[in-house]
């Protein structure tokens, strides 16, 4: 699930954001917490000292609406006492406050232990000592002058407004997580993570008819620095519209978006029925996220999310059978927190486990899930898969989705060649409306751009398109996947889960793929 942009943290100066907290000081504070919790009776403790920096540059038409730098800095202490989890967090980081917070976490664990059915069982984890990890970015976006960023967005808006758009909103949203983790296992892990998301929304209004159309940017949020905005031709894919890989030309996309929003007003309204769908990675990431990412989260499978996000149709018996046919033989889906440039990339997760890659769906068969330390034993693992994450120092860490991606096809195949074989189809680009049930069977997706394919050729733009399918039927209808040359990442900053709600950023890679005979509905209504 995705949520709107939350604004959290306190606002600070740019200079302040560029000075990291001293690692020795963080170690000292962590040790205060570890010792205080141990002395109160905790049998395990981990401490996260987090400095979460955000920068938003927000523009509307010809104006800069807002420039905000926020920092959220504090400590979260998680303990096991009497076999139960307890958690407490504070932004007062003197020794006394840290010790009191640790004591509160232990008190909560002890209060809750009377409601336990079985004690927490953690998979073993070796301590790594004092280690660090930094995202391999080329240019720290926080170091780029604000004026340069604001000027870029204003030129993006201008490109849209001078090509037919009535309104234009654009945002540059930067994230830097400076995270320190320490645990009674003997790890002291310092990490520096960067994310960037340039995004815009074009609106075209036809006052006479009272209709309007929109087109959102075809960018992806990335685990990259400012280099993502320095596009060069090798990052561009020339399709019916220009598509982007590791570098994004925001001005060129805005210009295209404005023209396409005008074209949408008079585009053909789709005739409902069965179509072969050709789904671009800028669209398919979201279908992967919802229909494979979420149902293979082990906490959902087990029922830990039953009261909010839901459970999963991918129950343990289907995994144990080793023959549950999730998709066609072409479908290979893998999990990782290591892909360079992805939103989920990190050295260690939020319970001190080194990150790796593993298969989830192999040749169409369900072979694995996503697990953390207190779940690993349930699926017979003797170590965690490193999927633990908290969105802030104040939030407790729990199982979150790693990057979940569709492997490219093994045979040489381009999207153009794929389209040549389609008799009656729709080529969908960009993510739009999305909804899926609480066990991840039935879904409906829209998009940004829809092109009708007739007898192997794109014949024009369509609108009012959404497709509905059942997850297993849909992935079994996958008949072609383009090769690795077409592999691109999409993703979200705001995957929502948990109570209290937390967000997480995650990428999903894929190449353009074909799905046969999918049910398409028409979404136009009259008021």
């Amino acid at each position: 699930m995705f949520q709107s942009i939350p604004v959290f943290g306190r606002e600070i100066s740019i200079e302040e954001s560029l000075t990291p907290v001293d690692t020795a000081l963080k170690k000292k504070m962590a040790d205060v917490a570890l010792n205080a919790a141990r002395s109160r009776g905790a049998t395990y403790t981990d401490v996260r000292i987090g400095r979460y920096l955000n920068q938003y540059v927000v523009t509307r038409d010809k104006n800069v609406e807002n420039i905000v730098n926020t920092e959220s800095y504090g400590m979260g202490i998680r303990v096991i006492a009497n076999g139960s989890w307890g958690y407490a967090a504070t932004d007062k980081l003197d020794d006394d406050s840290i010790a009191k917070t640790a004591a509160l976490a232990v008190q909560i664990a002890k209060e809750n232990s009377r409601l336990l059915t079985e004690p927490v069982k953690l998979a073993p984890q070796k301590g790594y000592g004092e280690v660090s990890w930094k995202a391999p970015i080329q240019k720290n976006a926080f170091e780029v002058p604000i004026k340069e960023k604001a000027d870029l967005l204003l030129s993006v808006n201008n490109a849209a407004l001078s090509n037919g758009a009535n309104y234009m909103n654009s945002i540059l949203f930067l994230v830097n997580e400076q995270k320190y983790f320490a645990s009674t296992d003997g790890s002291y892990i310092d990490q520096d993570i960067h994310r960037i998301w340039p995004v815009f929304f074009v609106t075209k209004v036809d006052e006479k008819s009272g209709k309007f159309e929109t087109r959102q940017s075809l960018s992806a949020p990335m685990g990259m620095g400012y280099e993502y905005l320095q596009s060069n031709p090798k990052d561009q894919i020339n399709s019916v519209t220009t598509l982007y890989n590791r570098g994004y030309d925001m001005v060129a996309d805005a210009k295209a978006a404005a023209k396409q929003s005008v074209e949408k007003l008079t585009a053909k309204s789709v005739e409902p029925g069965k179509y072969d769908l050709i789904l671009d990675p800028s669209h398919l990431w979201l279908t992967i996220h919802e229909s494979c990412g979420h149902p293979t989260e082990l906490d959902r499978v087990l029922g830990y999310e039953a009261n909010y996000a839901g459970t999963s149709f991918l129950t343990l018996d289907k995994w144990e059978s080793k023959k549950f046919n999730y998709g066609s033989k072409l479908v290979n889906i893998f999990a990782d927190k290591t892909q360079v440039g992805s939103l989920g990339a990190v050295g260690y997760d939020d319970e001190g486990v080194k990150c790796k890659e593993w298969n989830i769906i192999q040749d169409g068969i369900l072979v694995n899930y996503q697990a953390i330390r207190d779940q690993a034993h349930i699926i017979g693992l003797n170590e965690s898969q490193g999927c633990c994450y908290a969105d802030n120092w104040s939030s407790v860490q729990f199982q979150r989705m790693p990057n979940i991606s569709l492997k490219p096809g093994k045979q040489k195949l381009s999207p153009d060649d794929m389209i040549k074989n389609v008799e009656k189809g729709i080529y969908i680009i960009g993510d739009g409306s999305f909804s899926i049930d609480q066990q991840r069977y039935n879904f409906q997706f829209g998009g940004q751009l829809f092109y009708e394919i007739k007898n192997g050729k794109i014949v024009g733009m369509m609108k009012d398109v959404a497709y509905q399918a059942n997850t297993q039927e849909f992935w079994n209808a996958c008949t072609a996947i383009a090769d690795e040359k077409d592999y691109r990442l999409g993703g979200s900053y705001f995957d929502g889960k948990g109570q209290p709600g937390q967000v997480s950023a995650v990428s999903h890679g894929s190449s353009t793929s074909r799905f046969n005979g999918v049910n398409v509905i028409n979404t136009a209504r009259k008021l």
Partner: protein
Amino acid sequence: MSIISKEEAQAIMKKVLSYSKADECTINFSGSEDGNIRYARNSVSTAGEQRQTSLGVSSAFGKKVGIATINEYDDASLEKVVRRSEELANISPESPEYMPVLGPQTYAESITFNAATAALNPDNRAESVGKSLKVAKDAGLEAAGFLENSTGFNAMLNSKGLFAYNKSTDVSFSVTIRNKEGTGSGYASKSYNDTAKMDTLALSRQAAAKANGSAAAKAIEPGKYTVILEPLAASDLISTMFGGFDARSADEGRSYMSKKGGGTRLGEKLFDEKVTMYSDPLNPDLPFSTFAGDGQPQKKTVWVENGVVKKLAYSRYWAQQKGVEPQPSANRIIMEGGKSSIEEMIKGTEKGILVTRFWYIRFVDPQTLLLTGLTRDGTFYIENGKIAFPIKNFRFNESPVIMLNNLEELGKAERVGNLIMPPMKIRDFTFTSLSDAV
């Protein structure tokens, strides 16, 4: 302590203001203490407490604005945050939509704080959850739920002498109870300002009854049906409508409140005449702060009366552009209901579907407010005035604007989440496909 009294907050903010050299200065000061407990698989899973405070200073030189925030309150820190906001204002571009700060306002006494809710602790929370777990265990069912309470304060002081302070509490509880086979699921949730109203035992029994009643659901064909939406289901859909009450989006032609040929639908009859919706900060069941974020007083506001759109929200900037009075955004909506209970509404229905709640609701088309989503945790077929059998969940594609024109009956309204909503009977509600989800 993260909850600071009115007097203490005012004293700190006055000190901050004394450091200001800007043309205009606004100080916002807030703090919160939140506690929660979560459970699943009939056992507690996570629980915690968070405390934080924050003081923000907005300084303006002409139309150049800078904002800085801090959470340390010694004199040096307070002066530092003022200087930093002024430095940021000096390097910021002019904000063409900047509005001068308001002078002193008169606010009604708020009723959002309840001392018993503020006093909840880990022991109380564990006890409340214990009652819920007992219901599930005794019935051989499986519970997952969440209980959270929060206490917060929010204060504002500006260089023209406006001062506002509010303290509030909230407690919310939700529970999903499923049968062990995974073929039945029920849900109940409530939010209150006053913890005395929260009954985790009764809500858990309600969810357990739905879990048993929804087991072994039959599939029926998707299509257009008469539906009875329980208050939770109704609020799931109605709560999506109020973004559209923003006058600027409507004037700009990009909302369902936009009029063909230009302008807004203010004054038009857009819904069935049974529809009346308002907000009231002093409603004892759904109170909210008597001042808005920009310092304007919050008063009882009728948004829709007998189906006619009576008010749209105008920011101070947009109100000035349009030469009208500003109106803070729609908040905590109350929809007037009728007198019937859900049971009575079922009795009066020949054929229809009873919906407990909806799930994963998303906009499909902002122009018509077309939404999609699914039924969840108890969907039942009604025949000859009785619940005949549980049915499998449906995906719907429906607009609440169209739905409120197909309104047959409203039942007795109650608080669900942050709305007060009646159950409603709607004809021709559009279900487009079946889901196997339980």
